[in-house]
């Protein structure tokens, strides 16, 4: 039995059965149902295999890029992230898991530990990857802006929770914001809901006001 999988093929089968008996039509329907039922399992496995393969290759890519970046000294990495990418020192510290004071010392020439240098390198590599494979014009702002207007979660929050792969998948369009946040934290809707917004007040300055 050949397996027809496209809507068009199914429609053709339906057209050819229009004039046949009811019993024949029902048999065709059952045959198609069995075909699709039989396909469901293999397709799911194939989909999972493809997703896992994509994930492995991306991890490999990120690891290789991180290793290459880690050959740069800390000052060069800081310069790249701050001057070329536009991250604030505070953001760099947060995304590297250290205090602003530690970043200040690195800027003064103090060498970070190998682990911290690798964290810096990984951030720089991740931003490069984001820039290269995903349609994100400004990776720094993409990472620091809210993912959803009515919730405070940002890509930076997810990055810090080890979700770099999910972020890259999302940035490439493999799934939407809802699924991204669901994978991160099933309670994200309640835990990050924002009832406030920033408005320009009558004096021209920014204020925080309850969302209307």
């Amino acid at each position: 039995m050949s397996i027809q999988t496209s809507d068009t093929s199914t429609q053709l089968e339906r057209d050819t059965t229009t004039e046949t008996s009811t019993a024949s039509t029902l048999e065709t329907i059952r045959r198609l149902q069995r075909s699709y039922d039989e396909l469901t399992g293999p397709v799911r496995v194939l989909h999972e295999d493809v997703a896992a393969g994509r994930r492995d290759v991306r991890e490999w890519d990120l690891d290789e890029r991180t290793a290459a970046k880690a050959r740069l000294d800390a000052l060069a990495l800081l310069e790249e992230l701050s001057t070329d990418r536009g991250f604030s020192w505070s953001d760099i510290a947060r995304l590297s898991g250290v205090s602003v004071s530690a970043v200040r010392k690195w800027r003064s020439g103090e060498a970070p530990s190998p682990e911290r240098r690798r964290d810096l390198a990984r951030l720089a590599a991740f931003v490069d990857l984001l820039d290269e494979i995903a349609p994100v014009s400004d990776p720094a702002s993409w990472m620091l802006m809210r993912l959803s207007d009515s919730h405070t979660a940002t890509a930076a929050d997810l990055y810090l929770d080890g979700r770099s792969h999910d972020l890259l998948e999302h940035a490439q369009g493999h799934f939407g914001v809802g699924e991204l946040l669901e994978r991160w934290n099933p309670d994200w809707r309640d835990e990050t809901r924002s009832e406030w917004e920033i408005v320009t007040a009558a004096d021209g300055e920014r204020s925080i006001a309850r969302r209307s």
Partner: protein
Amino acid sequence: MALLASPDDPDDLWQAVGDEVPAHRMLMQGDVVVTDDGPLLVVTHACSMRRGAELHDTQMAAPIEDHQVSKWDGSYDWMPAPGAPVPDVDNPAGLLRVLRSVDTSLLVSGERVAVMSNLGIQLLQQRLAHHLTRVAIETAELAEHCAPILSEAELHEDWMGALGAYAEPQFHDLLDTDDRKLRSWLSDPAKRPQAITTVRREIRRRRDG
């Protein structure tokens, strides 16, 4: 869940303490200053300290006292300041119940012994707002609101550190050119990195000459 937030590590409160404090950093909310009138914690909101580039004549401050804050969530009258090197004070904390107006000159002439990190400033703002209104605002909201002025303060510090105090007017000129374009970018999260990149490249251009 705690009503008010606290740092994972007390060190996270500070951007710099003691000798690390850059002399050229602009006076900012969360600074700890040892003055002739005792140690003070500056609490005026970061956005309300200046008119343009000029500091207002007075600022709001809380006295720093020696007080062991047993728990962050609950001691609502206090802003704990562990790690701020205040002479003769083992457990520094700002007493929010005794907020007062002080002359800016008192702060400028004092010895600044600690400056808060962005996180420290957000925690201070949260405690201050709660102390005055009993409204607990998430620090994530406060962080978004303050990001433009704190980014400007950071760039100002970089500018002054690289180019010297005499170059300060050019910093404000740069932000104000083209109908205040860079200030507008700093206020827009989508364009803030562009503003940061523009200013840092200008610093590099001027420094390397």
